[in-house]
């Protein structure tokens, strides 16, 4: 295995998935054997804590710490859920992991299950990921067959089941508590926190929820140790990260790189820089719900704290690049349309404010902008601050808008003053 790319280094160049045998040949299920063979659940948690693995779903919460929140005395059944909803626009990393190396995810989940004393796992997968679904289903069957799943795994006395659930489609299903409702066959409105899922989650039982990429790191951490994992990184946050770039760059794509690789390096070395004839204007570092960064931020290392210092969030680490031939107002309009569409309709600032913002932006793009629109937009972004709304969807929607108003104010004003979109 290319030691510096544990997540993707083993993937087959022909695009097929690694089957169990292939996965085992590159060290697969060794982490599980090691854990079940002599590590206590607490030791697994400690190892993951020490690795500084932070959640790859966007919020960057310490994975080991999250696992420790399931009280030792908590009742059973307990659940582990892999969040493979990936509906955040501009994000295309978990798809690769489930399509190309599903066993890696399965092993990660079993380890998470073992660490948290869980009984059942669900892989919650984006409904449109049909290929991924087929491959995960196959991997699960193989894992059951090989005794990695089911009763008394590898004769350790530990039992764990995994079921695959395909989403019926809503961004809210990616929000972890919305996902729990979706798994319960309900509307995917979010739930109040507290109680947090480790206390009262799926079907009211203790539940641990992690992103697919997060879980895929775990087998490698257990097999190679926390120090090794930390060593992969160029930052405090451990490991590698799947970074992506889309938009008008020469080579859009996805790369597994050391955590903390700078934006410039990703953009210029891996994505090949901007296409001919277009110039860089800005980027969303990690999906639709992150603040714009601009030229001056290009040397920011992509990790959770550094991107935050620059005024944005690393989010999913898949960057969306804005160029000078693309209208920033149009881009924000597209983004807010997405959020407005996906608002679950539970809390007022979100369902109502997003519908309004969507119309204002669309109006601006169509030459119907009004003086005062920018103040209304700015107000809505404050209205959607974290804690003001029930879940993080609307605060996420605020991020690209508030930063666009900061960095591209002139363009917004131009739309209003000229009563047209200058890019059209």
């Amino acid at each position, binding site marked *: 295995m290319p030691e510096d790319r544990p997540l993707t280094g083993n993937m087959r160049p022909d695009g097929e998935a690694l089957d169990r045998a292939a996965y085992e040949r590159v060290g697969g299920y060794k982490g599980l054997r090691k854990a079940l063979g002599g590590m206590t659940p607490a030791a697994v948690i400690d190892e993951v804590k020490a690795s500084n693995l932070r959640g790859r779903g966007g919020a960057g919460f310490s994975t080991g710490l999250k696992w420790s929140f399931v009280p030792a005395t908590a009742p059973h059944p307990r659940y582990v859920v892999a969040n493979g909803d990936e509906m955040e626009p501009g994000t295309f990393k978990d798809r690769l992991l489930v399509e190309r190396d599903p066993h890696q995810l399965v092993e990660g989940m079993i380890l998470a299950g073992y660490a948290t004393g869980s009984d059942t796992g669900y892989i919650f997968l984006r409904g449109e990921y049909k290929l991924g679904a087929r491959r995960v289903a196959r991997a699960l069957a193989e894992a059951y067959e090989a005794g990695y799943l089911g009763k008394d795994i590898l004769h350790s006395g530990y039992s764990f089941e995994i079921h695959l659930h395909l989403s019926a489609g809503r961004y809210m299903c990616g929000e972890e508590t919305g996902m729990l409702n979706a798994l319960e066959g309900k509307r995917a409105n979010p739930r109040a926190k507290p109680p947090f899922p480790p206390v009262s989650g799926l079907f009211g039982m203790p539940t641990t929820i992690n992103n697919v990429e997060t879980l895929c790191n775990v087998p490698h951490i257990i097999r190679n140790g926390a120090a090794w994992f930390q060593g992969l990184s160029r930052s405090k946050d451990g490991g590698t990260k799947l970074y992506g770039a889309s938009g008008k760059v020469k080579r859009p794509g996805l790369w597994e790189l050391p955590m903390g690789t700078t934006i410039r390096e990703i953009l210029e070395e891996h994505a090949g820089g901007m296409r001919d004839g277009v110039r860089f204007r800005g980027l969303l570092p990690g999906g639709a719900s992150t603040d714009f960064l601009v030229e001056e931020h290009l040397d920011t290392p992509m990790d959770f704290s550094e991107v935050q210092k620059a005024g944005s969030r690393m989010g999913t680490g898949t960057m969306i690049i804005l160029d000078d031939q693309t209208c920033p107002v149009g881009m924000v309009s597209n983004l807010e349309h997405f959020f407005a569409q996906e608002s679950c309709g539970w809390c007022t600032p979100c369902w109502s404010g997003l519908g309004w913002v969507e119309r204002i932006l669309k109006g601006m793009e169509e030459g119907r902008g009004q003086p005062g629109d920018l103040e209304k937009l700015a107000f809505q972004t404050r209205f959607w601050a974290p804690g003001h709304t*029930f879940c993080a969807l609307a605060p996420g929607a605020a991020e690209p808008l508030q930063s666009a108003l900061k960095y591209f104010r002139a363009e917004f004003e131009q739309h209003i003053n000229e009563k047209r979109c200058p890019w059209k």
Partner: protein
Amino acid sequence: MNMATVYVDNRAYEMDEKQNLLEGCLRLGMDLPYFCWHPAMGSVGACRQCAVKQFRDEKDERGRIVMACMTPAAAGTRISIRDPEAVEFRKAVIEGLMLNHPHDCPVCDEGGECHLQDMTVMTGHDYRRYTFEKRTFRNQYLGPFLNHEMNRCIQCYRCVRFYREYAGGNDLNAFALRNIVFFGRDRDGVLENEFAGNLVEVCPTGVFTDATLKRHYTRKWDMEMAPSVCVHCGLGCNITAAGRYGTLRRLVNRYNGEVNGYFLCDRGRFGYEFVNSERRIRQPLIEGKAVSAEAALARLGELTSGRVIGVGSPRATLESNFALRAMVGADRFFAGISGTEARLLKLMLEVLRGPARTPSLREIEASDAVFILGEDVTNVAPRMALSLRQSVRQQPMEIAERLHIPVWMDHAVREAVQEKKGPLFTASVSATRLDDIAAGTYRGAPDDLARLGFAVAHALNSEAPAPAGLPESARDFVKEAAEALKAAKRPLIVSGASLASAAIIEAAANVAWALAGSMLAFTATESNSMGLAMMEAPALDAAQAAHADTIIILENDLFRRLPEAEQFLERFRHVVVVDYLENATTAKAELVLPAAPFAEADGTLVNSEGRAQRFFQALPPPAPVKESWRWLGSWDKLDDIVEALARAIPPLAAVTRAAPPASFRMSGAKVPRQPHRYSGRTAMLANISVHEPKPPADPDSPLAFSMEGNPDQPPGALQPFFWTPGWNSIQAVNKFQEEIAGPLRGGDPGVRILEAGEGTPRFFEDIPAAFEPRAEEWLVVPLHHIFGSEELSRHAPAVSQLAPPPYIALNPEDAARFGDEAEMLGQRFPLKRLAELPRGVAGVPAGVPPFAGLEFPMWSRILQAP
């Protein structure tokens, strides 16, 4: 209650630490707007309207916005309501809610008593900045009770939370998402849940409005209102009756913490229209011809000079029954019910004077294991079913407690608890509307139900007798029910007389007595069944034997009481009836006196809990109509007759305390029935005379037919409506309570006159034999219907639309030999196949002619319809 010091805008207050900050603030009388929170349904944090600023400590100057309804009132919490950011936030929430709202207040039924209006004014949102098109919805037909106007919706989710989570309905839901969530049915159709009418009050704006009000629409501020009591079953839910121009316009809930709380059933809410019915008797009649009051009284004098007997009524007040009794003499006064019913009522009364306490509805809600024996509660005493629905949440609440989830965190509790329910067992002749929450159900003929009850009692206490040879199918039920009751902290047994079985009542009593500390609730079918029983008058069978020339019948249609009413009446030379609706009995009367129905009357009713409650005139009775007790006696004032009856009948001694006397004044003034914004007073009757008439005097109560009076809060029993400055909707009730969702200030209305006794009871020993089906006959039992079985509400057009036509119900196997119709008592009826009805038992709709007035249970042949 543990009080915690909470700082609001830097002043220290005491709040109940078990509550949230919104409840805490409201209890202290502060104005904090809200939508999705409901005092009976808790918090879900959806609307974000109740935002306040919370500070970590004194030094924290930035603070953060939190939802008051989602934040516990923990000791030391510091919040600000006035903080500019919080103020701005709340204003923005209203602005957001109003984006799509049609602003159609002038033509909206809710206008003037709209929580959305109130909150909009409260937050100061007054100019519209949204310039885009509004979303529009198609409205649905939801049945005769409710109108649907979805464009007014603000997406607070209260309707579906009430309908689905609180009331257990499943045909109303939220559809779609974002800013186009639609609240309705999957298609047009009558809402199935019996409590749907509460949506009128639960919805904070005008999406669900009272369809019956629409036909004689009047604004809240233009209605004359009075505290009243529902007359459509024995529970005595408190209502506000409201009228104008001499017609009763609508009823709304009148909060009583111990009785109905925030909710009514649809029979109670919409049955009122009988008061406006075409069949109202508005003039005295002699031989069917209208005469003056004087002529009528003269005739009454003549007819009562000889031998007279009086027949009272379980739907007439204590006062009216007593007036009749006083007129004819206690020994010539008969309860206007069949011998069977009288015996059953007497039995229930005796049992309730035994060691088991009869609970209020609030206590029923708090019970943690329930055994319902024989009753279809939803159809007999509907509001009790809603309370029982909450009782199954009690035991699982322990899960939430263990996880430190406060009880008011409604969805978090429901998510933690999932579908788990506390034990509730139903034993009935057929399926009931509570079976969906039941841990166990059992079906049997009345005698078999009684046997089951005896068996449960025996399982709890071996001194209680055991039935021999209980069928296998009952054993598990008995074991599980007994274990659940035994394990409970507040076990409850519910039973009643609706199957006309003494054995069932005795069995229920045995169960309650077998388990020390259990509560026992009996349903009663009529508004004053219990009060009449306490008067201890002999029943109609005894009247058969009485020798008299004249019979005076009080508010009673004997054709609904006796199979042979016709022959019975023929025995008297003169029949006098005092009543408000024409019926078969008034048709036989020589003299009919126009009585005032509840909305035009004052009086006292005793509910099935043994709570005496006073109601007052919402409308002055249009002369010559007056209360029956006024026709029959010579008391000038209500208080005089109340005192007289309290003195004459010791068990009723406490009824004087049901409400303050007429002399009660607040700062020397009466309590106005009309709100301070009552309009058109001087013009209302200008088409008749330009001189404004003097408002009718009211010698009977501290209430005035006027807008003049003391605007302060009177004691709960006198509270005509809930309304305070800034709170024009019924949600103003917060301002009238001692505690949020707790008792009204000064105590909840009514006085309990029935309390459990001391001592050890003697178990009933008479266990009936197991039911044996017969070859050619069926045991006919009454099946109760919330809409249709009760006499008065049948005359409300909206209710009558939902009343079933007469039918015969049989077990499908019994029915196999018949077609779609069958014959009974010489008439053809449609045949209904009820899978759960025991074989050998036939069901007919209670109270639905021609089955009203039959003696149940009875054996009858059923024949193939020719």
